């Protein structure tokens, strides 16, 4: 069964056009002008049960709007959504029993009271039986090491502590789908990796479907088998992370440090016949870009015989870089021309 099915989903917003200046403002007082903007533009995708899917895109690409539609907060302008067998915006109260939501930027805990009190309250709100609640809470508290924090008021928690509590709050009613909107925002590396581990565990042991938005691609690398990339309201990539890398990765960069001065013409002559591109930083330092389908050793065998090499570094194109390129070109279709350096 599919956990999430989305077909031609669209959300238009009506944006008020403010006329500038005093005269414009006075006109706006009596008659206003609006403009329709598609925040989410006819997107379709399905997420099977038990998958962890990353949902990425620049600010304003439509990620939050999609999440809000999937969680039943917003009603779509058109298109079909089915989450957990429900249409989220109909039967909202029944539907939300089966999902968990964490907004990284916004707390769902009560500010002034102990964390455990918030959990107790949520137990009542979600009508979880005392026995289930206790079992579930014990597991989560154990797993996330919250024992010390339970009696503290939320306002006394650090951001990392609070975020772990937010996760517990969203999971107390054992939802089968969890939506995480930027769950690692503002956290330090240690807490980030703790949360990633926890989510991975949750997915493995409970089969929980997870959809998360993030700006931290390491979240995606650590967690997601699949990534959906959004730009200006449309999906520009939907598939495996590895796929994205091989399609988009520009191969490897091999950086040579030479013992004596080397000319550009020499470099090109050495690798004659190989699809290698050279970039020179100085007389002593040059980088060869090696395509993914070619062995790096071929370049070594050519170069090492010709000149004295004092140091070599090999690096792969990072996901960050790939995504940055996709954002700046606005499409995940691999460009025909490789951008030459």
């Amino acid at each position, binding site marked *: 069964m599919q956990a999430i099915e989305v077909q031609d989903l669209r959300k238009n917003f009506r944006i008020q056009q403010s006329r500038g200046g005093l005269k414009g403002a006075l006109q706006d007082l009596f008659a206003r002008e609006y403009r329709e903007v598609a925040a989410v533009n006819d997107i379709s995708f399905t997420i099977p049960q038990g998958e962890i899917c990353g949902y990425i895109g620049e600010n304003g690409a439509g990620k939050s*709007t999609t999440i809000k539609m999937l969680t*039943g*907060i*917003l009603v779509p302008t058109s298109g079909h959504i089915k989450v957990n067998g429900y249409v989220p915006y109909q039967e*909202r*109260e029944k539907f*939300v029993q089966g999902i968990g939501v964490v907004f990284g930027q916004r707390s769902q805990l009560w500010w*002034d009271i102990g964390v455990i009190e918030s959990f107790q309250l949520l137990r009542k*709100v979600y*009508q979880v039986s005392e026995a289930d609640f206790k079992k579930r809470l014990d597991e989560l508290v154990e797993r996330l090491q919250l024992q010390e924090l339970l009696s503290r008021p939320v306002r006394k928690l650090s951001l990392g502590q609070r975020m772990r509590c937010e996760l517990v709050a969203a999971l107390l009613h054992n939802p089968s789908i969890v939506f995480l909107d930027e769950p690692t925002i503002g956290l330090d590396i240690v807490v980030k990796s703790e949360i990633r581990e926890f989510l991975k565990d949750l997915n493995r042991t409970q089969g929980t479907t997870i959809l998360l938005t993030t700006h931290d691609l390491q979240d995606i690398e650590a967690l997601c088998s699949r990534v959906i990339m959004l730009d200006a309201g449309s999906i520009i990539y939907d598939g495996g992370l590895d796929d994205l890398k091989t399609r988009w990765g520009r191969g490897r960069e091999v950086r040579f440090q030479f013992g004596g001065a080397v000319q550009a013409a020499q470099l090109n002559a050495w690798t004659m016949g190989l699809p290698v591109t050279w970039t020179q930083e100085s007389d002593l330092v040059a980088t060869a870009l090696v395509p993914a389908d070619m062995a790096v050793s071929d370049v070594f065998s050519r170069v090492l015989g010709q000149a004295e090499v004092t140091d070599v570094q090999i690096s792969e194109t990072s996901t960050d870089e790939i995504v940055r390129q996709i954002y700046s070109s606005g499409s995940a279709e691999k460009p025909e021309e490789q951008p030459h350096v």
Partner: protein
Amino acid sequence: MYYLGLIWEYFTNYVKTRLTYRADFWVEVISDLLFQATNLIFIFVVFAHTETLGGFTEAEVVFVYGYFMVPYGLYSCFINLWNFGDRYIVKGEMDRILTRPAHSLFQIFLENLDPPSLIGSVIGIIIMIWSGGQLGLEMEWWYIPVLIIMTIGSTLIYAGIYIILTSVSFYSDSPTGIIPLMVNIQTYGRYPITIYNRAIQIILTWVLPFAFVGIYPAALFLQRQEMMAMAWLTPVMGIVFFTASLLLWNSGVKRYRGAGS
């Protein structure tokens, strides 16, 4: 039953929160009482210059005020929408409300419970007893059940008006909403409505029916024949206004979910 359980849970949470800010609790209670006291001062000053107002004596007007305080206290305790636009729309907490499995309006009521307001209701009853004594009103057996019915009716009207006004936040773009503008108007239903001209009487009876949270139901206990019919309309108006407000609220939420932010 589910909702009753939630009221209790939120109430205990309220108490726990309050215990951490004990000084504030008393500031709030005292400022609430002073708020009521200033209203009484208005009545006393006015009657220093006139014997009757629209055929009502000072003790009668004070009695009406006492009645008003009872539903007002209940309303303030359970239906506190004062900061709705700012907190839920502008700061976006409405999204969190909508991811939880209970009616949105009810969740907002619960998150803003204000039990100290109930002290006002108690004082209202004391004022009614005291001014009733001055008027020589005999306590009759039907006073208590009728008072309960009227109080529920008035509270529903009050709630209805303010839910309607709050729903405007879904349609308007102003962070404060228009509720602060109503602060003075809500007091007008406490004076003998016959002193106003026709247009204002109609407004206070049918449009912003604050007269049902004051003069009309109180007139029943004061045995004012001319307002008897209106007094008995109180529970009916309560149901009508409260139902209308729920419908408007639901359509406002629908709009919110349609328009997003």
